[in-house]
């Protein structure tokens, strides 16, 4: 391949799914009376009320940050909350990266992430591409059950275990589905039409071109991560291409749902995980055309197993109405306490926002850590003003000191679990808890930190983000 360093490719992957799952049978049973055609098999991942495309993309990217900052952080989504505020910039602060790291947002297409990844690979730079998706859907639509919420991230770089050996892109304004300012939920066209055109006009030619660039035939592909616009596309295309590689994105669709811009990258983890040295792996992002990339695997890719692990985890949503509420499909009357709105001030965000979203506390001259920082340390052994050393708490575990499940104040998904959390380095922080275990939280439980929406001002259309404490281990589906 010309223009790309020989060993350049994918160095590591990260995947994130929200804990909650909706068994599609639950929904189809609820809607059986309507006669609407609904997917019945498998489950979809459902974001908690305080998760969005950004928080999930940050979670996916966290394992990729390592000891050195990348040269760029790219965020991709078709469902980002802000339309004039770079999500990548917020993610940069949440990941506590230096401000000198370049940031870019990619949007408006399900293949935004693969296009961003291809750009990173072709520029031969060490970058993180992270994609998150939480797309709004309409009750009764097949998309509501077919889509899922989740995120996937990739770090590129030299000396990669999966190097890019060929690629091709094709632009084709095939309107298989769309969302717009006036129709924010996905509108889809007939599947048979989409399948026929997508296979013949997009998938087959772009895969052929990528394989040709890699100097292989499609039949040499061992694994594929193909984001299908509708199911069955890869089966049809593979037949034409003479390719037997399984499409690992199907497992994502079945068990978590179509993750939009994150779908192909999530499937890539599943495809790379079982790949052996010498295997060729296809990545295909679809949306208004396609990007196809062929990787040659030299050794295991760090983090590829996280996708498979995330698919196995999950807590089933027993209530369809809770699902409708979490997805914003119904608006319950939560009473006057829900009228509460808190305005975040830009001046305050400018002063302390980076410490807040980065969860950065301070270490005093005795070594004790506190959050937030203060001029006079909270440590009673100290009596003078001092400048504290930054300490990031987001990646540390802690222990619950006190806890309650609050049912009075408004929460979109009650109860509101919160309490004091003690970090091993001395910091003690009053925190919200998420991913409530079946038996509830208990004093002494160990917790880890997750980025979440802190506050949502619906009237002003603004969100703030902070970290919340979650159990260290998630239940595997069917076990809790």
């Amino acid at each position, binding site marked *: 391949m010309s223009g790309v360093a020989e060993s350049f490719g994918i160095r590591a992957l990260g995947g994130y799914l929200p804990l909650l799952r909706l068994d599609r049978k639950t929904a189809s049973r609820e809607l059986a009376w309507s006669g609407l055609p609904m997917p019945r098999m498998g489950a979809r991942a459902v974001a908690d009320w305080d998760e969005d495309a950004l928080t999930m993309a940050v979670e996916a990217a966290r394992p990729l940050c390592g000891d050195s900052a990348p040269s760029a952080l790219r965020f991709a989504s078709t469902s980002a909350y802000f339309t004039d505020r770079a999500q990548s910039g917020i993610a940069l602060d949440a990941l506590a990266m230096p401000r000198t790291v370049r940031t870019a947002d990619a949007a408006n297409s399900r293949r935004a992430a693969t296009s961003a990844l291809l750009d990173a690979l072709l520029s031969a730079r060490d970058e993180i591409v992270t994609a998150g998706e939480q797309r709004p859907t309409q009750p009764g639509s097949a998309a509501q059950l077919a889509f899922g919420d989740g995120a996937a991230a990739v770090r590129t770089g030299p000396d990669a275990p999966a190097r890019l050996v060929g690629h091709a892109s094709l632009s084709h304004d095939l309107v298989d589905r769309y969302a717009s300012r006036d129709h924010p939920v996905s509108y889809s066209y007939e599947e048979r039409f989409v399948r026929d055109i997508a296979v013949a006009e997009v998938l087959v030619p772009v895969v052929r071109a990528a394989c040709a660039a890699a100097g292989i035939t499609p039949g040499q592909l061992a694994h594929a991560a193909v984001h299908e616009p509708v199911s069955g596309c890869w089966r049809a295309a593979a037949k034409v291409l003479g390719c037997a590689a399984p499409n690992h994105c199907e497992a994502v669709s079945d068990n978590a749902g179509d993750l939009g811009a994150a779908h192909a990258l999530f499937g890539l983890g599943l495809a790379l995980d079982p790949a052996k040295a010498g295997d060729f792996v296809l990545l295909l992002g679809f949306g208004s055309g396609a990007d196809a990339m062929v990787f040659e695997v030299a050794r295991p890719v760090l983090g590829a197993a996280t996708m498979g692990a995330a698919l196995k985890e999950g807590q089933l949503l027993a209530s369809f109405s809770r699902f409708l509420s979490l997805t914003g499909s119904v608006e319950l009357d939560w009473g006057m306490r829900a009228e509460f709105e808190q305005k975040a001030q830009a001046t305050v965000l400018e002063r302390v926002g980076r410490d807040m979203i980065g969860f950065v506390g301070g270490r005093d001259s005795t070594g004790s850590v506190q959050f937030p920082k203060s001029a006079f340390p909270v440590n009673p052994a100290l009596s003078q003003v001092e400048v504290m050393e930054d300490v990031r708490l987001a990646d540390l575990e802690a222990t619950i000191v006190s806890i309650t499940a609050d049912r009075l104040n408004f929460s979109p998904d009650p109860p509101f679990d919160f309490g004091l959390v*003690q970090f091993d380095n001395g910091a003690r922080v009053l925190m919200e808890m998420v991913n409530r275990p079946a038996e509830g939280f208990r004093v002494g439980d160990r917790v880890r930190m997750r980025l979440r929406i802190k506050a949502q001002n619906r009237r002003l259309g603004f969100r703030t983000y902070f970290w919340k404490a979650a159990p260290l281990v998630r239940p595997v589906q069917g076990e809790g």
Partner: protein
Amino acid sequence: MAKGIRDKVAIIGMGCTRFGERWDVGADGLMVEAFVEALADAGIERARIEAAWVGNALDDINVGNSALPAAHALRLDKVPVTRVENMCATGTEALRGAAYAVASGAVDIALAIGVEKLKDTGYGGLPLRTKGMQNDLWMPYGSAPGTFAQLAGAYAARHGIAAGDLKRAMAHVSWKSHQNGALSPKAHLRGAVDMDKILNAPLIADPLGLFDCCGVSDGAAAAIVTTPEIARALGKADPVTIKAIQLSASNGWEMQFGAWDGASVPNTRVAAARAYAEAGLRDPRAELDMTEVHDCFSITELVIMEDLGLSEEGRAPNDILDGRYDAGGAIPCQLDGGLKCFGHPVGASGLRMAYEVYTQLQGRAGERQRSKVDFGLTHNLGGSPFNSVAAVAILGRLN
């Protein structure tokens, strides 16, 4: 330690409105009710008030900032009026301001008045905070029951008490206050409630059920203070005097520095120790005849009994179940029903507590009257167990 203000300030008049859902009256009317009663009790004219401290805690929705709402409502002409706020310790804070003014000799007669008009929010519980400053970027916005509920788990963990046993002791706290509230004509909640109903009430914040939580009310209470000499000159032969007022505030260590297990409220302990010293009480368990404490939640009262040193560590549940703090017990707590049943208009509560002790000290408490009351203690707790302002006052008689 400084000598303090023991017996330097006499209370010559007090007033307290009926607490509750006062749809009939606003904050100004509440202040007028309490003030008129206090003036009549003191036997002085309004013009004798030389300075005033008005306490209200939740300025966004009810009374309003500054001296002006009180100055207008009471038509205090050119009087130096100061508005104070210290969360749930606000009422005692107002009394502290007025008492210090008299004790310093700055004025002869001062007014302390606390008021809150909470039932205009349209919902139960305390009003919500909407300003959105730095703390709101990270601090969970739990409710008041949510913050105090956490005392229960921590207390049970420290003392190895089974959750069910603790819950029964907490229920007795509420049961007792309902019994007392039924005898309190100005109380918000005047119905007795049985233990089963308390124990089986819906959860508000684990493990606090509905009956573990105090009422949120409208109300006002006022005290007129002066020197013992002027009190005598006004015909108060053995006036009620302030033996101590002490306050202690968190500097953040409980919630930011890992040295506290969450099973007690350190500020209460500090304020109480200072107050006992100021009042000259060496054995408060034997010397105190009654307490009015900040029972915003049943678990709070339980923990306060140990924080005030009235129960041994880990023994408050036993003492409570043994009736030590019931109306007929050794040190009755909340003879007027407490926050639980008299109600909790935040800025007024500290002065409402003083009103009950003042009334008992003068033998004017009717059906609730204790046979012997020489010393009574009031306790306010603002904020949350992990970030609090605690105020302790002790009242007695001059002679």
